[in-house]
């Protein structure tokens, strides 16, 4: 089976600034790939290169087996959805959907059929006569997706499509996009800075920083086995706990605290080196549950943050901050002495200097 989108050694520089360097990526047919990262990491730039809206400095791009490196966007077999919807403001919805097809001189009945199909899938039929200015944000975004749908292509590109919507609409449309993917089974490349969108929608996530892909894995792996400090800190809310210490004979030594690593499988362990142990707040147990954990310690609660569904509390271990999550019913208050515990082998150990996972 051929990959749907294939990128070989893609580089892009603006003058002397290297935005993307020798990037390679293969995306399978029907896969939902998310490009995730903070602002300026190059994810949108990469998407624009795939779309053909940006000229690359080196490398090749293949879509559906065809070398499209020099092709115009319209000949690449892609559809694209933008953050600001980019609907043509003076045209009706129907016109917005059909304008590209009309320009390509498609027969009218074919156009009508495609428009109907798209509007049925996205349920925008009743909106066909309205202009974008008369639509709500969510409706506009559906029309934007519809415009990509009528093109009847293999690959869909999404450039932060939900960022302009409020939180509630965002979660609604997120589910719709997932349903769309399940129904259409097209390859979708999706750019976002929101880790929740990434985790919920992706088959695989490519986390990017400074133009380099830090890790390319399915969400589960990225969540449980992050490859470096950056990825570990980016995914997960509240942020992963980072405890810095020295590696000493199978333990991580903090100030006055020794954390045995137990079954953690290390790859390149150098005794005496500085390491960072990462533990997710949701993997830290408190009270009775803590006793079952391989590592426990008594600590005092400094701050309590009630979140409604659960509570986040801040304590200190070996002089360093440790947060944990507990169910809302567990009584916690500042100054309370509790027993906390976790399983270090479920955590992640990183080399303090390079940030890489060891």
């Amino acid at each position, binding site marked *: 089976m*051929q990959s749907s989108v*294939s990128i070989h050694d893609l580089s892009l520089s603006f003058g002397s600034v290297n935005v993307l360097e020798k990037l*390679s990526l293969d995306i*399978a047919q029907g896969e939902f790939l998310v490009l995730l990262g903070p602002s300026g990491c190059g994810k949108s730039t990469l998407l624009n290169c795939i779309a053909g809206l940006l000229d*690359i400095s080196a490398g*090749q791009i293949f879509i559906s087996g065809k070398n499209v*490196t020099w092709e115009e966007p319209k000949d690449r077999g892609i559809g694209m959805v933008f953050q600001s919807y980019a609907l043509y403001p003076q045209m009706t919805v129907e016109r917005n959907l059909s304008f590209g097809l009309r320009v390509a001189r498609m027969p009218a009945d074919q156009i009508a059929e495609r428009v109907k199909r798209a509007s049925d899938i996205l349920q925008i039929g009743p909106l066909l006569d309205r202009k974008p200015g008369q639509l709500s944000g969510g409706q506009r975004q559906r029309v934007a997706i519809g415009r990509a749908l009528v093109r009847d292509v293999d690959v869909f590109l999404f450039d932060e499509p939900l960022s302009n919507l409020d939180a509630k609409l965002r979660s609604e449309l997120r589910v719709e996009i997932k349903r769309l993917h399940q129904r259409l089974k097209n390859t979708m490349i999706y750019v976002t800075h929101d880790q929740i969108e990434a985790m919920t929608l992706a088959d695989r996530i490519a986390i990017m920083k400074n133009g380099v892909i830090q890790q390319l894995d399915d969400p589960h792996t990225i969540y449980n086995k992050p490859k470096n400090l950056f990825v570990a800190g980016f995914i997960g809310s509240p942020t992963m706990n980072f405890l810095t210490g020295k590696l000493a004979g199978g333990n991580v030594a903090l100030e006055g605290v020794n954390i045995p690593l137990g079954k953690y499988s290390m790859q390149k362990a150098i005794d005496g080196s500085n390491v960072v142990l990462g533990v997710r707040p949701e993997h830290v147990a408190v009270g009775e549950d803590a006793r079952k954990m391989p590592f426990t310690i008594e600590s005092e609660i400094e701050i309590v943050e009630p979140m409604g569904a659960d509570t986040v509390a801040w304590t200190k271990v070996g002089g360093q901050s440790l947060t944990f999550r507990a169910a809302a019913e567990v009584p916690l208050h500042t100054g309370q002495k509790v027993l906390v515990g976790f399983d270090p082998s479920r955590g992640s150990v990183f080399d303090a200097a390079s940030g890489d996972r060891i």
Partner: protein
Amino acid sequence: MTADSFVQTSGATTKVGTNRDALTGPNGPRPKRISPARIGIYAFLIIVAIFFCVPLYVMLVTSFKSMPEVREAHLFNLPREWTIDPWIKAWSTACTGRDCTGLAPGFWNSVKITVPAVFISIIVSQLNGYALTFWRYKGAEVLFNFLVFGAFVPYQVLVYPIIIGLRDVHLFATLPGIIIVHTIFGMPILTLLFRNYYSSIPIEIFKAARIDGAGFWQTFFRVMLPLSVPITTVAVILQVTGIWNDFIFALVFAGQSNIPMTLQLNNIVKTTFGTVEYDVNMAATILTALVPLIIYFVSGKWFVRGIAAGAVKG
């Protein structure tokens, strides 16, 4: 397609990237071909640019020729013998209907009119813009709309009542009179300019100043004025250009003793004793246009901003 590509199934850990040797087929940036459309666009722009340059070129070229050469009627040729006599004559000895003092007196009159008028009109409009943006009081909006309406009214509609008004205060055909006229007619656009600019300043700055205890005038001088340097520059350029280039107000309101350069130019050019001295006329014309032209070329982008700012209305 090629044997090189193979797919990574999504597993626990996937290698990023694949192995490839040399790149075959299209790679790297798209080859740039100069399309006929691009050539056409450049050709169009160049032709239009030449058309725009012609008058200035012709004026310059003519002004450096002597009259015999001018009469040869080769409008576009460079001077065979360059001479600056026309310029000297234009400045100091060209004759109007009444005397032969050249453009020089007109120049100084223009300066006398422009400098105060620019200064006053900008200060007043700035104050208005500031007051209107941050201190809204009843009736201000209505008056402001009248002012804006005034920006579009043809001057001729208001000329006669203003004549009467100035006569009544004995300021008709005086220097203060024409300065007042320029201030009045400059106010609508300038107030609009400043108000639009101040509207774009976050109101938090203003509120912070108020919380710090600053009053109306203090806020204006210590906070707003320093923030307004860009827009004030634009306003100065607009006003200097407009007032220096003015003709009709000078004609009606300046009086005999304050004839500015444009009017003086008119008197020189329209006076013909015998043959018309085109080279002198052209030199005089360029001299008159020189001040705003220099400002324009020196301050390039500010000028453009001025047009855009003055143009973006409502």
